[in-house]
């Protein structure tokens, strides 16, 4: 409702209907706050996990494998989450594993995003030969099984943490590229992008101010999912002996190595799986909450 139009008409109560809601700030609900606290917790563990863990990740206990939760070993101590297939303390290994899993998988996913989104949006915005070249290069990466590419890279450069991050990042950048390009192309045909270009805005402005903010929410939602894939990818490599080298703990490998325990009634595989789940689900909770409170288009459609 505007002041200037209101006074010109006799029946000013019948002015333009105020169907606009009042301005909102981004406030997180308890769900979003829960997500933030879980993610923060794991990020802290990346740094202090090894120091507060009761045991070293490589410590092998003297007694049984697959001990149940809350069991005590004589002379060694209390095992909150029991022990794994070669008698290591699972609780300690999860705390140690935060460093590798979140450190490596998160960094690799982040790298995949930086590379994939930059190239994908650039391809969508500029079109033409750049789009063709990037898309075909991307097709050839995506057409090879990721695990084969991983094996190749590790064989060529040797297994080290930087190699792992770089390999996983490069492989997953390909799928991020496809999503980013598709999103970018949808946004590029919007009138406001044309308005910006017709005003004489450069490529950088169009990418960073017009396209990226509108692609951010779907990309962020995909991030959590992609992270799980990277964790699984690294654990597959580890299983083949090419990923994280034993005895270093890593959540994905812990799940895989302890799967047999399920047959004996041991929960050893469940705890690292839960750790992965809490981290990735929390990331998605934060994303969903932000998009709902900022009146994202998805949230709007659901009303």
């Amino acid at each position: 409702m505007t002041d200037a139009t209101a006074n010109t008409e006799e029946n000013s109560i019948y002015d333009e209907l105020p169907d606009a809601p009042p301005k909102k700030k981004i406030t997180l609900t308890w769900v979003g706050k829960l997500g933030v606290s879980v993610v923060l917790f794991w990020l802290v563990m990346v740094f202090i996990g090894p120091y507060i863990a009761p045991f070293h990740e490589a410590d092998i206990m003297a007694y049984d494998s697959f001990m149940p939760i809350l069991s005590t070993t004589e002379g060694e101590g209390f095992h909150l989450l029991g022990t794994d297939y070669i008698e290591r303390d699972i609780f300690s290994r999860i705390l140690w594993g935060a460093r590798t899993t979140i450190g490596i998988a998160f960094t690799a996913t982040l790298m995949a995003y930086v590379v994939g989104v930059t190239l994908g949006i650039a391809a969508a915005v500029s079109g033409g030969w750049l789009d063709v070249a990037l898309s075909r290069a991307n097709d050839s990466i995506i057409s090879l099984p990721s695990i084969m590419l991983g094996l190749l890279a590790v064989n060529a450069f040797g297994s080290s943490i930087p190699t792992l991050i770089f390999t996983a990042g490069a492989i997953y950048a390909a799928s991020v590229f496809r999503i980013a390009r598709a999103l970018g192309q949808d946004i590029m045909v919007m009138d406001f992008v044309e308005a910006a270009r017709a005003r004489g805005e450069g490529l950088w402005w169009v990418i960073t101010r017009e396209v990226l903010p509108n692609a951010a929410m779907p990309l962020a939602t995909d991030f959590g999912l992609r992270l799980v894939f990277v964790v699984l990818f690294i654990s597959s490599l580890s299983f083949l002996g090419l990923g994280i080298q034993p005895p270093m703990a890593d959540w994905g490998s812990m799940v895989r190595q302890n799967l047999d325990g399920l047959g004996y009634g041991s929960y050893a595989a469940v705890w690292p799986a839960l750790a992965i789940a809490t981290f990735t689900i929390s990331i998605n909770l934060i994303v969903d909450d932000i998009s709902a409170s900022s009146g994202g288009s998805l949230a709007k459609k659901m009303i």
Partner: protein
Amino acid sequence: MTELLEVRDLKIEAPQKDGSAIPIVKGVSFNVKAGEVVALIGESGSGKTTISLGALGYTKPGLEFSGGEICLHGDDILSMENNDLRNLRGQRVAYLAQSAAATFNPAITIGEQVTESAVLHGVMTQAEATVRATELYHALELPDPELLGKRYPHQVSGGQLQRLMAAMALVGRPDLLVLDEPTTALDVTTQIEVLKAFKKVIKEEGSAAIYVTHDLAVVAQIADHIVVLYSGEVQEQGSVDQIINNPKHPYTKRLMAAAHAGPKPGMGDKLSGEHDKDVANIEVKDMTAGYGDIVDGKPAITVLRDINMSVKNAHVVGVIGESGCGKSTLARVIAGLLPAAQGEVILDGNVLKGSYKRRSKQDLQKVQFVYQMADTALNPKQLIGDILGRPVEMFQNLKGKAKREKVAELLQMVELPLEFENRYPAELSGGQKQRVNLARSLAALPEIMLCDEVTSALDSIVGSNVVKLLKRLRDLTGVSFMFITHDLSTVAAFADEIVVLYAGRIVEQGPVDEVLTPPFHPYTRLLISSVPEMRIGWLEETMKKREMAVGIARGVEITAVGCPFYNRCPIAIDGTCNIQTPPTHEPSAGHMISCHHTVEEILEIENSPQQVLHGFEKAAPDDETSATAH
């Protein structure tokens, strides 16, 4: 007549998270008698669509019925279980949505879709339904009724599709039809064709109808009873005669004032002359443009041919024509968004480069394009302050506090409160967004603004406020406008000059009062006759006019030779009009008509309205099947 549908004290509200509820419909009561058409009229947000959906026992997600009752033949719809509701919908009550294009599935034949609901509900067998559908095609005056069912939706025109939707709704012989703005998005000529068919079929079928619209002139043609709504409450209801001829409530009076009087000369205000330098601001010379690759100066699909026009300083030029005639393309060529294949665009005496990519910053600044849909023209992730601030920064070289002051000034100019600079576009109403859209173009301090249907998506009251604003801006800044629309009444009230486009060619142009008085180009005549007047019986009267017979029944055919209007012209000369490009006459200074008839002949025809003219024998609308160019 008995009461078919009774709506008593209907309340619908939107429950909120904190347990409170926002009332949307606040106790509405009205009745629909058998065979009667009741119009629900009001602006957007008045709850008219919500009430009409209630007749199907349906609310949009997020709303709920909170009181009152809706009875069909005495059965309370609101207390029905799912099974009863399923039988009610599509069988006893049928719904007709606004956009036929969005209603039909492009991959299924028309016949299958029209009969689907009746067969699914077990009202009739497929064979019976097909026979019934064919009857309805006849009743709706659709071309080639026997074979129409075998076609696909893209093979018929927009107006035909709209009529087919009526067939779809009527095939199961429902007691009640609910029509939600069925003609709002259509061109005036198409609107008449659809209205006429709807009126006829509703009368023949004897079905009752609820007609939802914001257009009083349309209501005057089709309704028996009118319910005027504002903000979920009935303001006034009565017979169509009483509401149209003797409105009592101030809101109804205000709606009537905002509704368009028909386009007449002298509706516009005279220019103050203050900014008038009488030099052409923008000039378009011999321009041909279209889409696809340009080979030898010819695009793959030619949209505009041989366009010559100009916009004088501080003048408003209205560009008018049906959808698909190339109005928007013309503006896009001038803005450099679509380089022309031939001809040139001249700004202040300098030839502009074809593409905006090669134009200088000053040229980009001087010519501003205003998009039709503010929803897609404003970046949803930028604050209004940033949307307006960026062009200020780029074109006025202002930063920091000076930039913020300029933004505040712009908001004031378009009559929006200052605190809007901290809002996102999604937090504004449609009319407010359109104002921001205009302000963004103003921020560049343009010489000419190309407004592409900026009022078309808005309500009559909101739209007329936007036009008022544009007039004020012109007086304030001396900016020129090219105002593109398919609404002749808006142009008549706002423009100084009119350009009438038909199938990519200019058929008539000149000062607004000259164009709106005889001699008319036959197409201008058709357009003027097609604008609904707020008068009962207007539809029947106008349908008797000569220009309607061929003009309404046939669609646009795009031809490279001859007069583009040949196939719809009541006074076309066979052997001349379809072969030779028409010459241009100048009945008065600056007024141009392209027609094979001389000005005297046209005037003579105007003065003898019922005379059957040569060429009129071909008027029988039998070859309508070729009219798919809508």
